[in-house]
């Protein structure tokens, strides 16, 4: 069995290779490792082995058996076994042939020094393996695969979930330790309900404390507010939005934003008060307009509301999109996020410098970026030398390509491939997919994060080789946002006919989603195994949020054609789905949502967590903004949020 010496991960800098390895490299140079390319076989991602032929049965050259660990000499390829305590034939080989000290584990493609009795690590060796491996991995991969764990996912909201999304106005911190959604939470998530202590030691978060109002707080609440009309049938915040002339794209996204838990809590807790907002006097402020809509939606009034003021402000913000034409909901979302961000005035200097049109900004303290902003990582690996160049891109949503049609008849072939090449990853989805043949969100995510060969005309300049080389590109999610927005690319451009069309294919999406396989640490780990990594440090793994479970709370769907159609959104409130079709809000069953053709999918993190800085922040914010009173108020039973 493979025991990963901890030398591999963290302290690559203070790791000193043994003298034997240094001697070997001095004698043969790093080119020597390249010959391994031909012998390298890849199993499931990240697991490489050394075989000369596909079905070769390696055996010890001395005893002829295949017991224990087998090592192939790096110099002469002689295989020796290693079966402690007394059967150490690879060591015998090293002792009888001076200079043949180093060997490679045939089952793991890892370096071993037979004289030191220890695994040794070498970045050049690992690069050679990774370079070769990515080539093999590519040729072994097939396009369509993966489905979500349909069966399991249908149980959707577990107890924990219900709580975080439920608390409309009353944000009670209930019996368990899961913090309810409090205004905002930090990025440096960590798990508070840690039933398993494994992630514990790395946590940096702050303890959640329930806000207990003092006497004077209670007095202020009582005096400054009017009781809400409680509606036993409908959860608060449900209010139709009038169509102001082809504005269903706006209404559908606004409904999703209205019920985005962290956003809702931010606005409802008066963190952006339009009556005291400084910007409003001089600039247009989309944040204030959002605040207006939130007030209107949660006022208890149920007659449809016309977000005319917001539309006007948005027109002024995005002048090129102004007018009564139909617009793309995704474009609207991006531009609204951008608008609220630009108007919020909380941009950090650094963020302002690096501001790009549509990307998010992880460091930005503004509300929309704290909620939606994530970080994508893109690795480009040179297939010749294994050098990897990494870039990070902020994003406020993840655009996914639909999987190409999976025909049932290709299933048998796929299964065989999956069985052989892709064990680890596809075992998750292959069963579901085999049955339905449908395209799934997990499948799309797999496509999004799989290694992809860059075409011959987009060869990447490798810094190490100092020339353009064939490369492999792989995406992963470096930092998950609080609210994950997926945009499904439902348009197809045909270059031959120079036309675009909408793809009406159904895509399955899970109600509960675990992003763990797609975050950078998992992707990189599965690609590299325990190779000596070049850039990664212990920090990188540590800063990765342990909480990767998301649940669906809003779906924006589109029906019709590319240039005209209708948007409708589905919103989940208190465990119940509602269809928001402009002015009409109706209760629908889960099946209706499942069967819908999602265009944008909004997922929220199930367990939120806090950084200590958030508490200071929100305290300050609360004090400075606490003076203004809104037109609406807290329901009498609920305890408002706060710090």
């Amino acid at each position: 069995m493979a025991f990963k010496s901890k030398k591999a991960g963290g302290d690559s800098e203070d790791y000193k290779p043994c003298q034997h390895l240094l001697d070997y490299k001095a004698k043969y140079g790093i080119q020597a490792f390249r010959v391994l390319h031909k012998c390298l076989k890849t199993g499931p991602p990240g697991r490489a082995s050394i075989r000369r032929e596909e079905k070769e049965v390696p055996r010890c050259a001395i005893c002829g058996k295949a017991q224990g660990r087998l090592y192939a000499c790096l110099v002469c390829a002689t295989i020796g076994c290693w079966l402690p305590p007394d059967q150490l034939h690879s060591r015998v080989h090293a002792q009888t042939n001076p200079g043949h000290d180093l060997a490679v584990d045939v089952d793991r493609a890892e370096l071993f020094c037979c004289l030191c009795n220890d695994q040794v690590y070498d970045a050049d060796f690992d690069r050679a393996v990774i370079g070769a491996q990515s080539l093999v991995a590519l040729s072994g991969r097939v396009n369509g695969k993966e489905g979500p764990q349909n069966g399991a996912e249908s149980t959707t909201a577990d107890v924990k979930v219900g709580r975080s999304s439920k608390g409309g106005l009353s944000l009670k911190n209930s019996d368990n330790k899961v913090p309810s959604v409090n205004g905002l939470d930090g990025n440096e998530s960590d798990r508070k309900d840690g039933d398993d202590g494994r992630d514990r030691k790395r946590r940096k978060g702050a303890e959640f404390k329930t806000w207990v109002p003092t006497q004077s707080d209670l007095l202020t609440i009582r005096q400054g507010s009017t009781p809400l009309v409680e509606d036993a049938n409908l959860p608060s915040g449900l209010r139709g939005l009038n169509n102001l002339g082809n504005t269903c794209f706006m209404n559908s996204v606004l409904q999703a934003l209205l019920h985005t838990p962290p956003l809702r809590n931010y606005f409802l807790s008066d963190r952006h008060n339009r009556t005291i907002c400084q910007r409003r006097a001089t600039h247009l402020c989309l944040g204030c307009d959002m605040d207006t809509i939130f007030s209107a939606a949660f006022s208890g009034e149920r007659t449809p509301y016309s977000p005319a003021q917001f539309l006007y402000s948005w027109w002024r913000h995005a002048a090129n999109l102004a007018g009564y034409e139909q617009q793309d909901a995704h474009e609207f979302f991006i531009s609204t996020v951008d608008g609220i961000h630009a108007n919020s005035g909380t941009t950090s200097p650094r963020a302002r410098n690096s501001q790009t049109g549509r990307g998010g900004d992880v460091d930005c303290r503004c509300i929309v970026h704290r909620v939606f902003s994530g970080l994508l990582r893109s690795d480009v690996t040179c297939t010749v030398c294994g050098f990897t160049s990494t870039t990070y891109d902020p994003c406020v949503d993840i655009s996914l390509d639909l999987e190409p049609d999976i025909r049932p008849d290709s299933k048998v072939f796929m299964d065989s491939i999956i069985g052989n090449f892709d064990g680890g990853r596809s075992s998750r989805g292959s069963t579901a997919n085999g049955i339905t043949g449908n395209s799934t969100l997990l499948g799309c995510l797999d496509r999004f994060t799989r290694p992809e060969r860059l075409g011959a005309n987009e060869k990447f300049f490798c810094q190490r080789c100092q020339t353009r080389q064939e490369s492999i590109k792989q995406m992963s999610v470096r930092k998950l946002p609080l609210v994950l927005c997926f945009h499904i690319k439902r348009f197809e451009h045909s270059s031959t006919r120079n036309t675009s069309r909408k793809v009406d294919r159904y895509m399955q999406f899970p109600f509960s989603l675990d992003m763990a396989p797609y975050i950078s640490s998992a992707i990189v780990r599965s690609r590299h195994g325990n190779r000596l990594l070049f850039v990664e440090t212990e920090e990188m793994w540590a800063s990765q949020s342990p909480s990767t479970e998301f649940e669906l709370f809003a779906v924006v769907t589109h029906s019709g054609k590319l240039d005209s159609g209708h948007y409708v959104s589905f919103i989940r409130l208190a465990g119940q789905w509602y269809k928001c079709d402009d002015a009409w809000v109706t209760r629908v069953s889960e099946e209706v949502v499942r069967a819908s053709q999602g265009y944008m999918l909004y997922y929220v993190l199930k367990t939120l967590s806090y950084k200590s800085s958030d508490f200071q922040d929100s305290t300050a914010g609360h004090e400075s903004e606490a003076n203004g009173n809104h037109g609406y108020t807290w329901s009498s039973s609920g305890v408002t949020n706060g710090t």
Partner: protein
Amino acid sequence: MRASVNRPPTPDADEDKEAEPTLQEIINIKLIESGEKERLKELLRERLIECGWRDELKAQCRAFTRKKGRSKITVDEIVRNITPKGRAMVPDNVKAELLQRIRAFLMSDAL
């Protein structure tokens, strides 16, 4: 030297020693040739992760490494010390499932 990696293993000393392979070896070869061994490995890996065996073993390795001092320890030592514990920790039902799979393979495959 570079080409030599692709050469068949050097018949070092004992070309003549070609002993009769044991039953265990024959089975092993069959498993490898059919690709079943890879599948079994994958299955085992999954099972051991599911039941927490891997985490437990990791913890043990970590503790052992810490005890010995991380600069003084070799992989070989860890393997030697942890292997017996690891073997003992494999749940019986996992062993049973694997045995069942191997048996089924031997029955189905025309040996």
